[in-house]
């Protein structure tokens, strides 16, 4: 036990005294947690400009355009009769879409005949397209409700759960923060291992104590960093967190542990302190997508889903989003939590084996 404590202390000492290790394992995640959310602070797209092509020229079509302008998502940038010119504006990227009100729109509606509005939205920006479509649908429904004397036979009420305004920051930032914890840990451990190997000629602690000490030290450091992210940065940017600290910490323990041990194992690959940065920097974005937060895992290729199982971020993001954003208990997130413990075990064995093997072979030049 004392050996473990000494190893933990030595790890912290190295981190504090090696500038590059410190900047990777401490400064980076603090910086990212303040920097990364900035594009998303407004949460939703507001007043996306659209053009209305009005071929009806009736009070009803004007009402539609006015109501559309009043929605949160869309602002009517202009009204024209020229569909071609309006579509050219979408092409040029100056407006997000065009809404075509056909001739006879009002007449059809008053006669209770179906009328069709057509949206031409910019499909290269899916959030823009979806915002325009959502706004037009809402106005169309309101207009229809206002003029039909008889109600539709069945209504549908949609209730968004956990992220009621559909905020982009609420959706993506928690996942990215978990990813940042993993990536700084993997890269930082890669650097730390190289620095340690270059330094300690004979490491007195047994392998289990060296591993346990490193894990303990990083656990303390990273729980503090997670606290900074989810308490300080979240509050600063007004992001919601629906969990108690205890539950979040209990969930994050196997996540941080498995990342640390994976980092120790991967760190054996590198000969120079900066190599882990160069080799691992490209893995961040794919790791985020493999978690399925941005694009559903169910729709990803089976082989990609299999690779995702090996990454702590996959389960860390899924589970933390459940607990932190959806108000789940750790028990409800047991699949992710259990998977992280299993990874801890496997990566712990791998790290122990690699560290032991390195000690048995004589040191190279």
């Amino acid at each position, binding site marked *: 036990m004392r050996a473990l404590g000494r190893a933990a202390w030595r790890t912290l000492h190295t981190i504090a005294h090696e500038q590059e290790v410190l900047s990777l394992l401490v400064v*980076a995640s603090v910086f990212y947690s303040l*920097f*990364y959310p*900035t594009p*998303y*602070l407004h949460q939703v797209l*507001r007043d996306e400009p659209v053009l209305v092509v009005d071929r009806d020229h009736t009070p009803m079509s004007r009402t539609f355009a006015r109501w559309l302008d009043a929605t949160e998502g869309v602002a009517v940038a202009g009204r024209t009769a020229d569909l071609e010119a309006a579509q050219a504006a979408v*092409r040029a*990227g100056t407006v997000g879409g065009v809404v075509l009100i056909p001739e006879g729109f009002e007449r059809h509606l008053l006669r*209770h005949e179906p*009328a*069709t*509005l*057509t*949206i031409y*939205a910019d*499909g*290269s*920006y899916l*959030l823009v*397209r*979806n915002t325009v*479509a959502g706004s037009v649908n809402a106005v169309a*429904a309101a*207009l*229809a*409700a206002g003029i039909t004397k*008889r*109600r*539709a*036979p*069945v209504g*549908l009420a949609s*209730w*968004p*759960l956990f992220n009621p305004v559909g905020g*982009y920051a*609420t959706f*993506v930032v928690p996942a990215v923060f978990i990813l940042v914890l993993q990536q700084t840990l993997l890269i930082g451990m890669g650097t730390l291992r190289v620095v340690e190997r270059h330094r300690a000629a004979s490491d007195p602690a047994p392998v289990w104590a060296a591993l346990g000490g490193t894990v303990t030290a990083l656990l303390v450091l990273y729980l503090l960093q997670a606290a900074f992210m989810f308490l300080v940065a979240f509050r600063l940017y007004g992001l919601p967190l629906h969990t108690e600290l205890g539950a979040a910490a209990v969930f994050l323990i196997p996540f941080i542990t498995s990342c640390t041990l994976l980092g120790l194992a991967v760190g054996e690959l590198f000969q*120079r302190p900066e*190599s882990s*940065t160069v080799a691992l920097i*490209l*893995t*961040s*974005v*794919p790791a985020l*997508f493999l978690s399925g937060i*941005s*694009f*559903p895992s169910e*729709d*990803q*290729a089976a082989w*990609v889903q299999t690779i995702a199982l090996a990454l702590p971020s996959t389960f860390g993001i*899924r589970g933390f989003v*459940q607990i932190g*954003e*959806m108000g789940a208990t750790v028990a409800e*997130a047991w699949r992710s939590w259990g998977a992280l413990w299993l990874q801890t075990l496997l990566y712990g064995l791998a790290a122990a084996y690699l560290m032991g093997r390195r000690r048995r072979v004589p040191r190279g030049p």
Partner: protein
Amino acid sequence: MSALAAVAGRELRRLRRLPVLWALLGPIPVAMTLLLIGVFAAEVVRDLPVAVLDLDRSAASRTAIRWLEATRSSRLAGYVDDLGAARSAVVERQVYGVLVVPRHFERDLLRGRSPHLSFLFNEEYLTAGGNVSADVSRGASTAAALLTALSGREPAPVRVDLRSLFNPAASYAQALGILLVGGLLQVVIGIATIYVVGRELADGTVPEWLKAARGSTAAAWLGKLAPYTAFHCVLVVALVGLLVTWYGIPVRGPAWLLVVATAAFVLASQALGLLIIAWTANLRMSLGLGSVILGPAAAFSGVTFPLSAMPVAARIWAQTLPLTHALTLTRAGISVGAPETGGGPLLALALTTAIAIGLGLPRLPALLRDPVYWGRP
């Protein structure tokens, strides 16, 4: 000219001794591109599990849920018995939404009371939740039409026909794939530039480098960086080409625009990397700086979350990143085919290149000659 060739030749021989650089230039970006191709395998959101909470259990309620199977983004995964079970199923991510049919649905329908279905969906998973709820709304109006037969009522009279220009299937592979591969490429180019220069400084091999250049500053820098410019251009074309071919994304713009855009993007990203290493003259510090600047660039590009919705500071930052302009160019050159919109971003990339090189230039001779910059980590 021969000094230039000598430096370039030396660079190629060096590459063999730098396995991590070699990995960064080829195997890793190729592997990551393949992974991203696999991520968007379905291209659109398809067949996500959705549950039903049927509190009525009538012929009408069964009709009211039959259409769920017909929506593209959802499939009926099963039934839940009460709201508690519905919540658990969503929280545990077994389903992305629950359709609730209220008690007395059939009775109210037949009495003309317009009963309401409720659809609870997981908006924390914004892409999945948004697609599923939009499809369910559309499906519900179809269901309403079906049920008209039962109740003798007419359906809502305003239909909305949504057409996605330039990406008719609203494919995520097209909308996000190019963005993410572009982001990878910008990191590769910037980090590789930092690394090839930084290693010379860190290893103190600069005199050898300058000697190969016969003492010429210009030959030393051009001979070192130009081979990578050429290589990066090939890599950009290869990886974007792989994605575009794999998903059959139409290339609507002229070839010259794609060639010019590729070169402008590569040069601007290299210039940014050069600026960073020139002023830090420290391999590890500049790699850290490079990671921080280039790593999150995709988030600032305006493709996932529009630039117009960002705070001013984020918008300004986005303009300094080559990726932002390169993506306007891929829109002009690939998905939309609007070469007339390419002038602005090309100019922006040229400016970025000129400013970054201009700011870095005063340092370039000194780095080659002043030993104070060598041998630092």
